[in-house]
């Protein structure tokens, strides 16, 4: 490799590697391969939405019309914006801008938390309407497949929220590390963490139409 990778300067090289470049590119590839497996994980939900919508088109459209499009759309804006802040954090770390980087990470964490708060409010509303399984209230919809839709919805958004929570923990940890201990391992952590965060965003980009827009 002739030209050094962006961000490879000043990285501590671990003993199994010959150079910082090799280490950085291995880290990046490793993260991308891991993300491929994450895509396959959520693939199970995509397949579920596909198969069950084919089987129960009316039920799915009716159920989707009971989701909260406004919260869903606002949440998409929130996540897309958090993707911007995390991308800016990578730019900051590559240029050694510690203040800007920590700020961007804090903004990312804040936006992630805002997403979870809105999602929680949405769950609470759905609980009130009896759409949640085992909510102790009669399920209000009667078309076949509507309950299936909501079960799939809660499972998929729940797993997505779990990933986001992990992302928030990661980002906060990295921000604290950066603030307290300086920049030794931070560039690699920020880059890998950012890739993970973007993937959470991408998963939501696909869940959004599957959940909120079916049959609108």
């Amino acid at each position, binding site marked *: 490799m002739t030209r050094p990778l962006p961000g490879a300067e000043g990285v501590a090289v671990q003993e199994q590697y010959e150079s910082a470049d090799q280490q950085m590119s291995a880290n990046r590839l490793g993260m991308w391969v891991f993300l491929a497996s994450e895509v396959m994980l959520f693939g*199970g939900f995509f397949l579920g939405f596909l198969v069950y919508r084919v*089987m129960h088109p009316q039920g799915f459209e009716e159920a989707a019309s009971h989701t909260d499009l406004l919260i869903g759309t606002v949440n998409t804006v929130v996540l897309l914006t958090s993707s911007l802040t995390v991308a800016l954090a990578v730019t900051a770390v590559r240029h050694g801008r510690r203040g800007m980087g920590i700020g961007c990470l804090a903004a990312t964490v804040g936006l992630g938390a805002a997403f979870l708060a809105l999602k929680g409010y949405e769950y609470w509303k759905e609980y009130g309407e009896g759409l949640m399984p*085992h909510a102790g209230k009669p399920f209000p919809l009667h078309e*076949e497949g509507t309950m299936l839709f909501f079960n799939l919805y*809660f499972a998929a958004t729940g797993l997505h929220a779990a990933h986001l929570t992990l992302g928030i923990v990661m980002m906060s940890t990295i921000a604290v590390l950066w603030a307290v201990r300086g920049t030794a391992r931070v560039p690699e952590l920020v880059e890998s963490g950012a890739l993970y965060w973007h993937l959470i965003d991408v998963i939501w980009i696909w869940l959004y139409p599957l959940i909120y827009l079916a049959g609108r």
Partner: protein
Amino acid sequence: MTATATNPASQRPTYLNHAYTLWSWLSTTDHKRIGMLYLGTLTLMFFIGGLAATLIRLELMTPVGDVLSADGYNKVFTIHGVIMVWFFLVPSIPNTLGNFILPLMIGARDLAFPRLNLASWYIFVAASIMALYFLLAGGVDTGWTFYTPYSSMFSNSNVTGVIAAVFIVGFSSIATGVNFIVTIHKMRAPGMTWFRMPILCWSLYATSLVIVLATPVLAISLLLVALERVAGVGIFDPALGGDPLLFQHLFWFYSHPAVYIMILPGMGVTTEIIACFARRRIFGYRFIAFSSMAIALIGFGVWGHHMFVAGQSAVAAIVFSLMSFLIAVPSAIKVYTWTATLYKGDIRMAAPLVYALSFIVLFVIGGITGLILASLALDVHVTDTYFVISHFHFIMVGASVSAYMGGLHFWWPKMTGRMYAERPALLAALFIGIGFVLTFLPQFWAGYLGMPRRYHEYPDEFQVLNVMSSAGAGILGLGYAMPLFYLTWSLRHGEPAGDNPWQATGLEWSVPSPPPKHNFVEIPVVEHEAYSYRPFGAQGSERVESDEEIQR
């Protein structure tokens, strides 16, 4: 380098003797030590799974249920399946031999992510303990396939706990898969081009691709079953309009490729052994390398042949049937290349080669009966009978474990610095080969005559076949137990092995046995193709390829 090899452990620092404390093992990030940790753990799991198999064979000696109750039998075959599939066969070759050999083979100091590698072992151990606890305390009666709606709505056993354990062990698999992929891409020594890599590296690469892309799909299918059980979130519930076949699609999208996770590394090991003991360059290197990739890729399109009688559409069934026939092509290519390599080779019958030859024989039998199962009409007759049991045991156990044993013997001198005793090793290989065939060949007949799987009782007319099978299992068990003793014995009393007891090519044989902590003092530069073998004693010398020539 060769001169110092006679006395392995005492003078020179090796990965084994640089520290002796328990903590030095539990906190190690050395791929060789982690490989040994896996070897110990997996051996334990293998014998636990084997104990369950023993109970099954004891029960089936007689047509009546006299050893186990019907429910107990269900739980025992679930223990056998779950332990053997996820806690032995899937990690067997990659995590022991692969972990140990892969970095040495490609000229790297370690895997790309050594700490992730250690983490994968801890995750594995935690998941194993969890699985054993839930399987033994209460047990699970669904079989290792966890089919819905039985697993999600009706079974009163520890399904959730075992599902959680399998879910967790998936992280361990994926960590290893990611590690291998990145290592092969990024850590090869200068000059070690893709087509100079030993075939085992190709097969580990193909295996890792399958692990990374298939395991998460298993995770999600099991997660949904657990959600249905724990939170009542019905996803596969027919009462809600859900489709139990969707679970089977997701489950087999992993679990069929999982068979390739088990067999591909075995194919790689077999290739190494055959080239070495036939003293020949492997025939058709590129064919055998690409056939591994082809098996990995086509393997993703055959899962529905597990569902021919489950009610899937005829269109899908035809596609799956065609794909299943298609995957026989790269598999056959491999068998032909091994045979062609052996042809006119300077063959030396050592224990590893006997295992490799068993691999070929058992793989061919398993493969050809697989074609019967891939045929739509024939499959209807033999689905869920002992014919299927026998078929997949030939591949997953017969072939796969033979390769594992062969590889273990082949690299044992490298791993420990000691030679095992050849006579008991040959005897064990013979017992395993004969015992295996005697155990499972009768099951083809029993299955074809209609004996269903997963029952603890059967009609009287199947008893002769079952007694044969149980007798074979006794020989097989003896064969599997023997290495435990003579390999352990060799650790202390074996002859010092020297750097390269088989006069094999490959970078792993250019370093001392056992290798030093960071494998290579200086990263080697590779200038030769793999397998530049010449016959034993050619040009008046036993040495085939001097280390300097490879390493320079």
